């Protein structure tokens, strides 16, 4: 698996550089940064294509009934602060509220074997959501994280139509409660951003992976797909793994072992 | 500087209001002895109100007369209208809800206004008939308006000014207090030209705005057979 995907990554990097021109331009090199206020933490140096962040999900370790990763993501990104609008249908609301990660339970049609796995944005290398977005609000950062610039998203939902993983959510209602680190408002589309705010401040972790470990399942391994010595590549090497809908050739950043 | 501008605006406002009132009273006092609506004309007062509304809002007659002039003329006036509404934020406190909502459209209006003016001006050079009837003053008024528009847009998009101070300045004028006006050259230019515009308004072709409402061929009801229409001076003839 590793051998199959990594060289491709490497080879495509130049292409990516061009495609993500916007990204490159936005990373103003040599920006002079001042610290005015002692309270503000030192700003970080910006993202680069030296990394490509990814996850490995070991479905065999993912426990039935556990939702720790989902809960952690909800808290981390303020999703738990959404509230059902008065008068909305309960079931419809479940289908309308934003969900960045969901717990999926499958049964093999032949063997009847049940598999559990968390499903979030797969951070495709060739993301259909980015291809279709008319304004370029859906974009891929240099470090491979696919996310939505909600300042330019017009809420057309075309990316949701395009995503094969149903990874994206539209904010259907007004949002009153929000966290400083996770702004959110009616009318835009959003999805898992691999906890970008953590990475940007130098912390190599995601809330979901942390939570899974905290629960003791260790089903989620986060890391840099480009770092041969990093934990992710090591884990990938240990376990046979694949991508969901590998047939589409999107080269996702999230890999699954055991399906 | 602020004092000069304060004085200027008091003067300009006085000229505008007094001059315009004077003109309107003069129009209203002058009798229209004969029924001369351009027919087909409405036969009721409501109909006339609708006709005038269509003229004011859509420039209906101009549309029939000249499509190009209409496009640019209408762009300019509608833009000007939106800009004026947007500008009310400097003059009203608190700013009424509709004016708050109109704000973003005012900017489009400003752009449309300048494009429209450019089109109208271009026509004065390009169409020989229009060139023939154009006087220097026609060019100057267009130049004035276009400069006002451009300086405004520059402030909006390039060199920002201190809106708070501007508003404060005009709020102060209401109560006779002169606050400092930000000394931004563009703003000062903008305001100077606006004052000029206010001063020339009652003495130039800009009188077309009130004029339209007093134009007998547009504002008369077509009912001469049903209702006798007699001017006071004509009544005197009958008494002889």
């Amino acid at each position, binding site marked *: 698996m590793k051998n199959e995907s990594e060289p491709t990554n490497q080879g495509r990097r130049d292409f990516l550089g061009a495609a993500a021109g916007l*990204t490159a331009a*936005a*990373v*103003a090199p040599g*920006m002079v*940064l*001042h*610290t*005015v*206020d002692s*309270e*503000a*933490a030192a*700003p*970080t140096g*910006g*993202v680069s294509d030296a990394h490509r962040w990814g996850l490995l999900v070991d479905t065999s370790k993912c426990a039935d009934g556990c939702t720790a990763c989902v809960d952690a993501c909800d*808290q*981390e990104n*303020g999703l738990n602060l959404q509230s059902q609008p008065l008068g909305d249908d309960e079931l419809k609301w479940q289908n309308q509220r934003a969900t960045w990660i969901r717990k999926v339970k499958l049964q093999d049609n032949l063997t009847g074997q049940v598999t559990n796995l968390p499903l979030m944005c797969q951070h495709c290398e060739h993301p259909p959501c980015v291809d279709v977005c008319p304004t370029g609000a859906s974009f891929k*950062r240099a*470090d491979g994280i696919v*996310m939505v*610039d909600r*300042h330019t998203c017009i809420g057309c939902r075309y990316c949701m139509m395009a995503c094969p993983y149903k990874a994206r959510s539209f904010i259907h209602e007004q*949002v009153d409660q*929000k*966290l*400083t*680190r*996770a*702004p959110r*408002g*009616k009318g835009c589309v959003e999805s898992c951003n691999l906890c970008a*705010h*953590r990475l*940007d*401040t*130098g*912390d190599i*972790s995601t809330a979901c*992976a*942390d*939570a899974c*470990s*905290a629960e003791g399942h260790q089903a989620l391994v*986060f*890391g840099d797909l480009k770092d041969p010595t990093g*934990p992710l590549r090591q884990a990938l090497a240990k376990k046979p793994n694949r991508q969901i809908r590998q047939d589409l050739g999107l080269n996702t950043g999230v890999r699954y072992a055991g399906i | 500087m602020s004092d000069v501008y304060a004085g200027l605006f008091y003067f300009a406002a006085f000229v505008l209001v007094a001059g315009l009132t004077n003109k309107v009273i003069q129009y209203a006092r002058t009798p229209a002895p004969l029924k001369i609506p351009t027919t087909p004309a409405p036969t009721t007062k409501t109909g006339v109100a609708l006709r005038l509304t269509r003229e004011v809002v859509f420039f209906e007659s101009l549309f029939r007369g000249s499509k190009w002039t209409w496009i640019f003329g209408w762009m300019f006036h509608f833009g000007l209208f939106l800009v004026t509404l947007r500008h009310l*934020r400097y003059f009203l*406190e608190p*700013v009424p809800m509709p004016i708050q909502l109109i*704000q*973003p459209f005012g900017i489009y209006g400003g752009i449309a206004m300048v494009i429209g003016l450019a089109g109208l001006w271009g026509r004065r050079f390009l169409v020989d008939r229009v060139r023939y009837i154009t006087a220097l003053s026609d060019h100057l008024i267009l130049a004035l308006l276009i400069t006002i528009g451009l300086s405004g847009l520059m402030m909006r998009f390039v060199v*920002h*000014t*201190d*809106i*708070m101070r501007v*508003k404060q300045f005009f709020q102060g004028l209401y109560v006779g207090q002169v606050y400092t006006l930000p000394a931004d050259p563009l703003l000062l230019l903008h305001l100077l030209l606006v004052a000029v515009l206010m001063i020339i308004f009652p003495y130039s072709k800009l009188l077309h705005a009130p004029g339209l409402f007093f134009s007998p061929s547009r504002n008369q009801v077509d009912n001469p057979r049903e209702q006798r229409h007699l001017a006071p001076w004509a009544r005197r003839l009958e008494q002889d």
Partner: protein
Amino acid sequence: SAMAKAEEVGDFVQPSSKAAAVENCVEPTEYMRRNHFELIRHQRDETVYGGIRGAKHSLSGCVSCHVGYDRQGTPIEIDAEGQFCSSCHDYAAVEMNCFDCHATVPKGEAWNHEVAAAHAHPTGAAPLAATSAER
């Protein structure tokens, strides 16, 4: 009216905010009055696309410095009537939809502010509580 407070430059700053105790804004006040939105807009793109956080012109920075507090020490929404942003924006009728999405009081703060320090694990278990360090 808001004007009453606006006799002097700087009067929009809420007395209870941190800014009241600081000498200067991130740029000269005259400049901020005219251009603050250009600054944050520029910062916005750098953050979103470049992942640069906690920089000088960040919106969360504005909020944390300018937000006012009531007697109990709870922050008051910065876009509430009469509060810092609104005191101007209402007066000049400038729409500001940033707070459709952005938190109006420092809440959970950005990851970088206080939490990052407390959260120095490369991988592995992280104290969840820290991430929601509300003020």
